[in-house]
């Protein structure tokens, strides 16, 4: 056990672990990570950097955070932090409640008067008595500063542990809800993610978007987006709640976040030359300004390998967002060539090649982020402990004064700042002056 502790507390191990973590994170910043990069961009990077790509394949550098080596580094950091926190706790405890006799590396000087007089004067300057006898007393200014390093490392440990727990157990995904449409719990989430110890998230209830409200500020910037949702039960009852940007909604343990993405969904009926009739829902994000359209592409939507490209203006007159009278423009590209395009409004028809399009209706849609995770209180707690530890460590350096009788009938004082001694020379000078110090033995 001692060897284990010695290994994880050795300065070489600690610096080695920090350097390993640094290397891993730096590599992840330089090499595209598969969980963050689209397959097209990954392929482009691989083509452009064949040597790096071979290395990346060999060592798994494109999935660093899923690599067993990274888990080992993280585990090592956590163990080392835990052991070091415990060691620092023991040191802080000993210094606070069972301090050693005397002070090493302090500056010593004599002052007139008794030990009790000096203690009284030091107490008036914010020094607390931590130990000693009637003849020998240890007084410390800011004794809580002993705990700074302990708390700093404890906070980091709590934060890392909570982050690990969240990464392993979180469930999350995205849903795009169209106004008045019902989303069943069995439908899969978009951009679904789950931790190694969790299953994909399934919403416990059916959900309906009753209404989406949005407002714009100057320059048409989105000011607020809010979705009114009905949570439907099997018995047919419903519960209505609203989620807004920066106002999270919690329902049956699932947290719903309002995304900044919203827009209009167009219900387009497509009739092919053979007479097949199919209904498609084309969701397009809200344009940024009334005079500019918003775009979306649908690869192989019609099952013929062609690309359907859509764009729309909220107001067909292109003047305002208040007047919702959308104009949809559809275009069909096959084998890289444009087959045709046409504008269409609700109730109108248009044709491209073998297809006839009919715009039946439109409705607003809203993007919601759904999250099921626990462990965030650990992050908050870690944050609080780190702040507290940082303040104690850097702003409240303990200053120790060992007060004792001398043979010359005066009182001897040994003083030191436990850290950054150079910063407190003026304080020592002022202390000597207030204690009536004459001769300096330092």
């Amino acid at each position: 056990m001692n060897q284990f502790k010695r290994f994880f507390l050795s300065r070489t191990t600690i610096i080695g672990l920090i350097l390993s973590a640094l290397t891993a994170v730096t590599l992840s910043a330089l090499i595209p990570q598969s969980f963050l990069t689209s397959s097209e961009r990954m392929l482009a990077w691989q083509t452009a950097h064949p040597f790096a790509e071979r290395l990346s394949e060999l060592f798994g550098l494109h999935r660093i955070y899923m690599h067993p080596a990274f888990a080992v580094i993280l585990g090592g950091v956590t163990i080392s932090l835990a052991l070091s926190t415990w060691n620092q706790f023991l040191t802080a405890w000993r210094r606070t409640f069972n301090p050693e006799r005397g002070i090493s590396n302090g500056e010593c000087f004599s002052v007139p008067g008794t030990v009790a007089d000096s203690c009284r004067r030091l107490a008036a300057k914010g020094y607390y008595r931590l130990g000693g006898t009637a003849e020998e007393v240890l007084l410390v200014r800011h004794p809580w500063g002993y705990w700074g390093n302990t708390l700093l490392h404890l906070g980091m440990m709590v934060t890392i542990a909570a982050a690990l727990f969240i990464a392993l157990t979180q469930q999350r995904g995205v849903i795009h809800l169209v106004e008045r449409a019902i989303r069943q719990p069995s439908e899969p989430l978009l951009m679904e993610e789950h931790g190694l110890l969790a299953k994909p998230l399934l919403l416990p209830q059916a959900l309906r978007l009753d209404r989406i409200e949005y407002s714009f500020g100057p320059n048409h910037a989105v000011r607020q987006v809010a979705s009114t949702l009905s949570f439907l039960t099997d018995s047919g009852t419903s519960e209505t709640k609203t989620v807004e940007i920066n106002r999270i909604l919690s329902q049956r343990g699932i947290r719903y976040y309002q995304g900044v993405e919203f827009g209009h969904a167009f219900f387009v009926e497509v009739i092919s030359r053979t007479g097949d009739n199919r209904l498609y829902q084309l969701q397009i994000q809200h344009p940024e300004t009334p005079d500019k359209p918003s775009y979306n592409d649908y690869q192989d939507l019609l099952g013929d390998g062609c690309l359907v490209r859509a764009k729309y203006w909220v107001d067909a007159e292109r003047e305002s967002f208040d007047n919702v009278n959308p104009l949809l423009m559809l275009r069909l590209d096959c084998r890289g060539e444009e087959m045709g395009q046409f504008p269409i409004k609700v109730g109108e028809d248009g044709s491209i090649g073998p297809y006839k399009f009919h715009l039946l209706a439109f409705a607003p849609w809203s993007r919601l982020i759904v999250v099921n995770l626990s462990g965030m209180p650990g992050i908050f707690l870690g944050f609080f402990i780190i702040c507290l530890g940082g303040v104690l460590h850097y702003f409240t350096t303990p200053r120790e004064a060992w007060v004792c009788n001398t043979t010359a009938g005066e009182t001897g004082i040994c003083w030191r700042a436990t850290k950054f001694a150079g910063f407190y020379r003026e304080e020592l000078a002022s202390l000597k002056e207030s204690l009536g110090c004459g001769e300096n033995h330092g």
Partner: protein
Amino acid sequence: MDKQVAIYVALNWLAVFCYVAATIANVSGVVFRKEVVERRSYYPAWLGLLVQSIAIIYWWRIVGHGPYMAPSEVLSSDAWITMVVFLVFMRCFPRIRLASVIVFPVTFLLIALAIFYNPGIRSLPPTFGSIWLVLHISFYKISLGTLVIALAFSIFFLLKNDRVPSAWMQRLPEPDSIDLYAYRFTGFGFIFWAIGMLAGSIWAYKSWGRFWGWDPVETWSLITWLMFGVYLHLRRFFRISGRFAACLFIFCFILSLVSLFVTSHMGSSIHAEYFQ
């Protein structure tokens, strides 16, 4: 609108003028050992701070959000916080007074650079209306301020250890003390950087349910923090000091500038709105 921009730019120029005057007086006071001149250099510095504060508040009222979106706002508020951090720390630790030789020019260079960007009105995305965002940004700015002070002492150390140090260098504390100040202010910067990073992750969680997204800004911020962690641990455990420590700090400082001002241009993320 043009009139408002003109007033804002004029106020910033006035602040630059004050800071330049403060820098000239300060540096000449230090170099030529004229203590009165050096002491009085703080008058234009305080005046510059006052003018800049008025400029920031004025622009805040016009654009409706704090100075943390457009490059001109970011650089100007960084300059302001650097100066405030220096003045506050100088009150707590009078021995850092000579760092003004670096802090004053850095302040006026930052604000002068801010003026060269178009101060157009940038609207705030709705997710940016959170107190955690304000804390997130503020702590990074405070961290930058403390790191500039540490930079000053690292540069002093390198200058003082030059083969033929200038005469004014005699006024600086002993190399050991300079080294210690650099170490301590790096520690402050490390802590404020950590708090800024954590406040950002809480903001992200409150806004869209994800506390860490590995976007370039987050990743490089973590790299910078780890690098400062390496610096601090090397100093503590391996007792590195002197020239190597000063050079390592300067490397870390450059990395922090890259994290703060360059990485938001590297990819699309929520941070892409910042400093564009």
